[in-house]
């Protein structure tokens, strides 16, 4: 099944430059329906209002971190199956394992390439569409 290019994506990062980079890369991949938030505290109410199909989040942010956001999402009945891709500079093995245990669907370590972003998004939705 092909990727839904109209899906609504929320990009969460405290650095506006990184949000713009991800937004531009997504546009190159054909995803134009994106919104932005600068940390978990701003992102969570947006997600709860509904309509988002995919969450891309940083980890290290002031206010609510990406990890806390992931935990909130997984604990919310309406959001628990929302695909979450973490794009972060956090590179410790323990942290990656913790993110996996918290239910992340993909993990990209910064600095990353456009190809990596494309591959991970495709892989996440391949697995979801395969029902796994």
């Amino acid at each position, binding site marked *: 099944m092909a990727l839904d290019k109209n899906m609504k994506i929320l990009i969460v990062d405290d650095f506006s430059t990184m949000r713009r980079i991800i937004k531009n890369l997504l546009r190159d991949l054909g995803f134009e329906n994106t919104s932005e938030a600068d940390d978990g505290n701003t992102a969570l109410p947006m997600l709860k209002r509904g309509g988002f199909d995919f969450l891309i989040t940083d980890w290290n942010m002031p206010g609510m971190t990406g990890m806390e956001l992931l935990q909130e999402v997984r604990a919310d009945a309406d959001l628990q199956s929302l695909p979450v891709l973490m794009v*972060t500079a956090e590179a410790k093995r323990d942290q990656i394992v913790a993110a996996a245990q918290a239910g992340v669907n993909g993990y990209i370590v*910064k600095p*990353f390439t456009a190809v990596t972003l494309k591959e991970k998004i495709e892989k996440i939705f391949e697995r979801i569409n395969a029902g796994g």
Partner: protein
Amino acid sequence: MATDDMSKAQYLELAERMVRSLQEDQHAEFESIVEELTDLRETTLFQEVGRLTRELHEALKSFKVDSRLGDIAATEIPDARERLNYVLTMTDQAAHRTLNAVEASADLTEEFTGKSGHLLEQWQRFRQRELSVDQFRQLSRELEDFLALVQNNGTKLQANLSDALMAQDFQDLTGQVIRRVITLVQEVEDGLVDLMRLSRPGSSPARTEESAEAADKKARDDAKGTGPAIPGQDNDDVVQGQDDVDDLLSSLGF
């Protein structure tokens, strides 16, 4: 000194009463004075022990503040220096990467704007019926080459723009590092303020609990996020790029 004077006066008074009671054979009075003297002696001793304990306690507390500052000076300042050097390297690389993309793109656009000028001129001559059949054949070959060039250079331009875009990730990565250094500077400032407070007599440090918290600081840092790994520094237990992340995750069944 005031306490010493008081004890001396008390001792003197008791001694006089003791001598008098002995001379007057008042045994009960004598016994009670000896008792009082022992009490006085013990009270002074306890006060002294109390004072020493307090001093020891304060000294230990100040030692904790000192040792945190010592840690900062010995490990974290050099560490911060490394981090700031990393920021320099990253910003330098990003600037060059962007400039390379801009310079390469300038060459590409120059190539097709130059050619388009010549073609426009020929095209206008053709529209005014000034070209011979041979000249038109030549123009149509040039037009075909030009369209191929636009397509080719357009693809290259797109790649250069992407590269310039990705180069901007330095702002996020170095920003996180700079934030850590700012936190460290703040901690040094607080530590120095504590030291000043300690060196003033009669004052007590307010922030000593923080030293005790240092033990679980690492765990909390990990949960909050610690920013990018610095090459040659954060090497323990850190993945070396996306391939390592993918290997780790697939080992967990991803």
